[in-house]
């Protein structure tokens, strides 16, 4: 296992990065890929070797600062990381401050996708804190002339155990910072059970700001002399402008400039979308002016994109076979000789992100010293935003600075740098600061949509009704199409990773084929991504088979999954991506999957559900982002309407820290899964999105929310998996299965419930 090396961070580098000039002790970790050469004192020299991921500074004023290089978007990272640190360091949480890092490769991966934030960072934070604690203790022990082993830290003091001796951190840091760095392998982390907040409800850093209106998001950044831009973008991918009215918008009071945007070229990646921008003194004027643009478009080839016809073309394509990313045994033969055959097709349409805060970015391009561009944005990935801005302005990356604001939800949309590119281009063209404000309609019509997928299944059972053969095809345009110069790209093995390559079935005959279809829109990733449809289809199909075989769905599901760890080889995988994490550390563990399922079934009283005369019950379980989540749902009918009455969700995410934020992520996952199932589905007509706002691109509202959501978190010593994403995939299928139990109606699509 790669251990991150903890280093002292020089004063100079700390000041450079944070602007904080207080002297003190500063430690941080370097990213694994770098090859640091330690200076004699253990201090690391400046760039390019200096690549801290996370760092911690204890000032002579006693203030502990954490340089947090991840965006906050509802997962509570900015609460959890400092609390982990406080517990490990023995610090007083109220004296811990978080500084949000700007986008820079030196912080390692800053993307807040993939549920990785906590997973990758808790060791680093704790490691740095443990080292700092050790150095503080050493300093105090020397002063007192006692053995270091007799001392500990608590509430921002070093104490001598069993005595009244104590001394504040503030009085120790300067001397501590002069010590040589202790041998990292000898500095032990505290036991999890010794951490005050471990696996408990933790304080929530920003909560007061949130309820008083003082939290500041991207759109709240104002710069002097700034114009607001509203951009009319092409509604069809690749459409270009024939003509537009550049006079009419200027008649709207407050409109200052009309600027034609550069036309993006394939691969579209994170370029802006093209179109025409109207820049004005205020948002209202920009939006009004834009209405007068009267753009005429050349729509181009993707105007042929129609949802119904495309679905039919996916069905045709799925009649042929495709390359298998997972194959074991001889599934075709096993199917031929099966006692019974089962088949079904599931379809999941495009899904939009619909973050509550529409995308927004502010850019200030100045000509000084050959050009410099500073951006403020609610971005999940300041590094890709930085590259996108560099490209849009023609500047080298080191002449671009991206500041991350709070995010009003991201869900993957805001890891794309397109809106930052647009703001940067416009600021350069206008010669003054510009804020690009997406409307809700822009957000829906110019989204990097989750892909559309068709999954075709055939399964064979033996005389006892046990599953013997499994053959599936998954057809979808992959994310890779957004980053290549052609639109027809096969699904990738890393896409099949999500719910197929790690489907913990131990059966002898298994095959999963990839079917290629063309992309007609920019495909992106939405919270849980491909897992959304793979989990939906697989869990519902298993429920279908169980019912046809007259088996209890719980027993049947438990019977198809292995009781142990399955290696990629024995599953028949050609590649294994495993969310880019070590397969030894995070194996595909059928036992954990089954445990989550059994637990959720017990919580929901699954076995005595027959006694509940008014409600139908359904189950689903799924591994994603290295965590295992199971869901049970109970639905009822009220005046012909399906009501999701109660939902139970069990997550095994390995070690989790901030219990309450895990609970809130699970609650949110249930709501999101329900939004997909009941309101999901972005459709296209002549290449353009048919939905426009929250009236037709629906999000669940309060009256539809379950009366009760019960969250159960497995106490585990396994390495941490994700928490932000894995809750969503099993929600929709559990509810669809419950609806079947109640009504006998089988849902094989989202948005049809």
């Amino acid at each position: 296992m790669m251990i991150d090396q903890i280093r002292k961070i020089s004063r100079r580098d700390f000041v450079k990065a944070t602007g904080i000039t207080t002297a003190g002790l500063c430690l941080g970790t370097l990213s694994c890929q770098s090859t640091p050469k330690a200076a004699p004192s253990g201090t690391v020299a400046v760039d390019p070797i200096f690549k801290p991921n996370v760092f911690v500074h204890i000032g002579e004023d006693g203030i502990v600062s954490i340089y947090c290089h991840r965006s906050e978007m509802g997962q509570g990272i900015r609460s959890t990381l400092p609390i982990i640190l406080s517990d490990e360091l023995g610090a007083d949480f109220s004296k811990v401050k978080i500084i949000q890092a700007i986008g820079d490769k030196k912080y390692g991966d800053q993307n807040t996708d993939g549920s990785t934030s906590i997973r990758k960072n808790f060791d680093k934070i704790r490691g740095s804190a443990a080292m700092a604690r050790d150095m503080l203790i050493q300093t105090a022990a020397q002063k007192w002339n006692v053995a270091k082993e007799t001392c500990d830290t608590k509430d921002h003091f070093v104490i001598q155990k069993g005595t009244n001796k104590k001394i504040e951190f503030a009085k120790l840091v300067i001397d501590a910072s002069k010590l040589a760095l202790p041998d990292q392998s000898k500095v032990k982390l505290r036991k999890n059970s010794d951490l005050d907040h471990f696996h408990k409800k933790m304080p929530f850093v920003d909560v007061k700001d949130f309820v008083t209106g003082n939290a500041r998001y991207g759109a709240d950044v104002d710069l002097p002399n700034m114009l607001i831009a509203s951009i009319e973008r092409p509604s069809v991918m690749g459409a270009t402008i024939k003509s537009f009215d550049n006079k009419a918008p200027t008649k709207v009071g407050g409109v200052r400039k009309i600027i034609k945007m550069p036309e993006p070229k394939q691969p579209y990646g994170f370029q802006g979308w093209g179109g025409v921008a109207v820049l004005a003194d205020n948002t209202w004027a920009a939006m009004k002016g834009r209405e007068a643009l009267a753009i005429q478009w050349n729509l181009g080839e993707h105007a042929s994109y129609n949802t119904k016809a495309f679905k039919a073309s996916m069905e045709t394509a799925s009649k042929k076979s495709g390359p298998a990313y997972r194959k074991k045994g001889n599934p075709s033969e096993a199917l031929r000789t099966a006692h019974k055959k089962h088949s079904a097709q599931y379809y999941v349409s495009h899904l939009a992100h619909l973050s509550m805060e529409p995308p927004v970015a502010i850019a200030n391009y100045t000509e000084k010293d050959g050009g410099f561009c500073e951006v403020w944005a609610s971005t999940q990935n300041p590094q890709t935003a930085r590259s996108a801005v560099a490209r849009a302005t023609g500047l080298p990356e080191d002449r671009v600075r991206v500041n991350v604001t709070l995010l009003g939800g991201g869900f993957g949309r805001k890891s794309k740098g397109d809106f930052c590119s647009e703001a940067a281009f416009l600021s350069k063209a206008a010669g003054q600061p510009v804020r690009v404000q997406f409307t809700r309609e822009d957000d829906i019509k110019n989204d990097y949509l989750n892909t559309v997928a068709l999954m075709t299944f055939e399964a064979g059972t033996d005389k006892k009704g046990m599953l013997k053969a499994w053959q599936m095809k998954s057809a979808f345009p992959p994310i890779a199409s957004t980053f290549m110069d052609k639109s027809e790209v096969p699904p990738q093995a890393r896409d099949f990773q999500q719910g197929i390559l790690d489907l913990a079935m131990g059966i002898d005959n298994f095959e999963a084929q990839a079917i290629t279809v063309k992309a007609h829109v920019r495909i992106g990733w939405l919270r849980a991504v491909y897992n959304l449809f793979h989990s939906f289809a697989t869990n519902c199909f298993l429920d279908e088979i169980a019912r046809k075989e007259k088996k209890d769905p719980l027993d049947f599901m438990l019977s198809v999954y292995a009781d142990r760890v399955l290696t990629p080889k024995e599953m028949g995988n050609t590649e294994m991506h495993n969310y880019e994490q070590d397969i030894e550390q995070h194996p595909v563990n059928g036992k954990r999957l089954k445990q989550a399922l059994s637990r959720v079934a017990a919580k929901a009283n699954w076995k005595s559900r027959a006694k509940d005369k008014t409600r139908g019950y359904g189950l689903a379980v799924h591994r994603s982002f290295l965590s295992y989540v199971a869901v049970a749902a109970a639905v009822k009918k009220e005046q012909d309407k399906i009501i999701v009455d109660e939902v139970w969700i069990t997550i095994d995410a390995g070690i989790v820290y901030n219990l309450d934020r895990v609970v809130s992520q699970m609650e949110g996952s249930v709501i999101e899964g329900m939004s997909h199932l009941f309101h999901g589905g972005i459709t296209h007509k002549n290449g353009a999105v048919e939905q426009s706002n929250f009236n037709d691109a629906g999000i669940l509202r309060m009256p539809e929310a379950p009366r009760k959501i019960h969250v159960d978190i497995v106490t585990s010593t396994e390495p941490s998996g994700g928490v932000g994403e894995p809750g969503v995939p099993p929600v929709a299928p559990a509810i669809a299965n419950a609806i079947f139990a109640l009504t006998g109606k089988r849902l094989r699509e989202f948005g049809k419930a």
Partner: protein
Amino acid sequence: MKMKFKINKKERTLDVDKSMPILWMLRDVANLKGTRFGCGKGLCGACTVHLDGVAIRSCITPSEAANGKGITTIEGLSDNGDHPLQKSWIKHNVPQCGYCQPGQIMNAASLLNQNKKPNDTQIDEGMAGNICRCGTYTRVREAIKDAAKG
């Protein structure tokens, strides 16, 4: 056009286009950023403020409609962030990203002004116009009930 508003108990005279929605008047002109833009069409409730004590969707209400009237935004709901709903929100750790929360709280405050002890259905119906994309609904419900207990 010059108009007079009493915003969070302070008299303000502002020169804005009379059709400019109150939302943009507050955010862009009066520099009060707590009121959020979510949809611009009265569909999500993120922009909820009180006009003479009653919740309105500021994104579809022209400034003209507030001329001479009192507007309360989240910044003015209480002096120290200690409105019973704000306290209850903190107790239940309601927010996730937080973006919708000022609108949720302003709407709930107006709901409680009209009905001191709403039942579950009344809460659901009263809050149906406020979307929370992060899915904090079950906590919003609990926090309102708790505050109403008072």
